[in-house]
């Protein structure tokens, strides 16, 4: 007698073939919905157009600008967001829920709205934009600084939230043990807490990067030139039509995917020791 394939049975399984197949039907449709446009985007390309578009200086500059600005955004999100995440995870203070809610606000603000609001603060006559130019010589219009500001606003919640969850998962008593072993608060933080939370922090940074490189709405309002890749693609679509735009789009998708996979590998693939040791 041959073994019959019944994946709905056994340990950790759903138990019923009906539930199993119904769930896979829904899930499969969803996966197809996600993958089909992306596959079609690549399938429609001819090597010639791809190479020609990839050779264009403006496309390459836009791609480089997108990657650079997104990396900078992730770095800044890490520098400011991770300490906030640690506070939210470890310290109880009045108004903590309000702070957590404020962190989530950018997720609900339409990105064009975010762009306009940011323009009023960081624009030429904005309440920060003007003094920054006058006293520091830092301009947020027509510069990468403006792009980073737009990207940071829409993508920083991912870093704060992921890092907060990661810090919450580190047993406070393990930090206590580190202290009694003779480590000062900073040494305990950097030798024990941060390494244990690192995977979550890295996930947050990766999500922030991914969200940044894909941002269009806020960036296009705050900084049209120099063009990031999404803005460049939009412009090419308006000027030259679908064929050229889709080639550039495929290129951006390729770059984003490669970097996303690389970061995930760096965060997850390297360390063989798993778990928080509860």
């Amino acid at each position, binding site marked *: 007698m041959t073994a019959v394939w019944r994946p709905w049975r056994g340990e950790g399984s759903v138990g019923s073939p009906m539930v199993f197949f119904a769930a896979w039907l829904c899930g499969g449709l969803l996966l197809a919905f996600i993958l089909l446009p992306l596959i079609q985007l690549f399938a429609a390309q001819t090597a010639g157009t791809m190479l020609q578009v990839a050779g264009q200086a403006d496309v390459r500059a836009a791609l480089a600008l997108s990657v650079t600005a997104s990396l900078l955004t992730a770095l800044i999100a890490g520098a400011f967001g991770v300490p906030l995440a640690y506070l939210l995870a470890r310290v109880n203070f009045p108004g903590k829920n309000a702070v957590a809610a404020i962190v989530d606000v950018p997720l609900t603000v339409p990105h064009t709205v975010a762009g306009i609001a940011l323009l009023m603060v960081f624009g030429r006559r904005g309440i920060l934009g003007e003094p920054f130019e006058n006293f520091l010589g830092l301009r947020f219009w027509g510069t990468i600084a403006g792009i980073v500001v737009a990207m940071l606003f829409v993508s920083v919640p991912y870093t704060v939230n992921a890092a907060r969850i990661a810090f919450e998962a580190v*047993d406070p*008593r*393990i930090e*206590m*043990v*580190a*202290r*009694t*072993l*003779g*480590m*000062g*608060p900073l*040494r305990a933080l950097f*030798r*024990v807490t941060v*390494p*244990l939370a*690192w995977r979550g922090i890295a996930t947050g940074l990766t999500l922030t990067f991914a969200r940044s490189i894909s941002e269009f709405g806020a960036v296009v309002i705050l900084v049209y030139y120099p063009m990031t890749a999404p803005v460049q693609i939009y412009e090419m679509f308006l000027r030259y039509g679908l064929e050229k735009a889709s080639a550039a789009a495929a290129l951006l998708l390729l770059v984003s995917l490669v970097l996303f996979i690389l970061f995930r590998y760096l965060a997850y693939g390297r*360390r*063989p*020791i*798993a*778990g*928080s*040791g*509860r």
Partner: protein
Amino acid sequence: MNALTLADVSLKLGTFTLGEISLVLPAHEILVVVGPNGAGKSVLLETIAGFHRSARGRILIGDRDVTGLPPERRRVGFLVQNFGLFPHLNIAQNIAVAAEANRSADEGPDVSALLARFGIAHLADASPLVLSPGEKQRAALARAEASHPDLFLLDEPFAALDVQARDDLRLELSRFLRETRAPALFVTHDRADVAALGDRVAIMCDGKILQCGAASEVFRRPVSRAVAGILGIENILAGDIEGAEQHRVRVIVAGHALEAEAGDRAQAGTGVHVAIRAEAIRLAPRDRVPVIAAENRLAANVVTLQCLGALTKVTLECGFRLVACLMTRDADELRLAPGAPVVALIPATDVHVLVL
């Protein structure tokens, strides 16, 4: 010189208050702190380790006043549930980070020597996650030793373990502490830990220490009903003192007179409780009462029998309910069964009057 001195330490933590704790741990001794969940045992340990600034009082480890020192300068070995090894480091690195943090002018502690001393040299490269509880305990002790602790603080390190592992680890821990003559404060809600580990025991409840003393003394003579309850003394009976003689009092419990050991404040006419440990009660057949010194002889009937392996718990009815605990072998010899008539023999010295 005492290993640890707490003088009137008190502290407020949210709604919890640790109330004026005064405690002395003589050098080389192990004090077991017992109490129900929420008694404040962990807060007490964390306060000694330096994680809560005490509002009042002083804490001395040896002759060092550590009241104002941060945890990293108090030199305590802190063992927590599951031992708190750093899961992102291997065992050698776990010890090395502790050694590194304590490296002063003199040569720091040698990691490989510590690994060898605790018999875990073969686990140097292993992740803490794959270790058995016993290996974890040894690694945690080795790591603590790297920071030269003057005092060990153990916060229910066995709480998550099964009974067998708990017994083994308790034995090993007790051997380590006695061999190194390291003073230790061991917090637990498991009474088995008291008997196995403690020279001294402190009973804690609601942020206060109710009684502290030699383990045998506290078990025999709990000061109050609350202490007797926390110690799990099976029979705590309400009664009235009828007559007090030199060393004896007579307590009337549900109309039956019990000869009891005299407490200091026992006076005739006062309502009290008496505590009788289940193992202090001997049972005999009605027709063959042995000639032993037991002032209290109560005619009783067996209500229920509960076999717990080597021991059997017998519930008796003798005008009031009594729980006795005897060897299962003896219970078999007595042919105990529900309804069986017996005599319960209790020496007056095992009937302890609780005035409070």
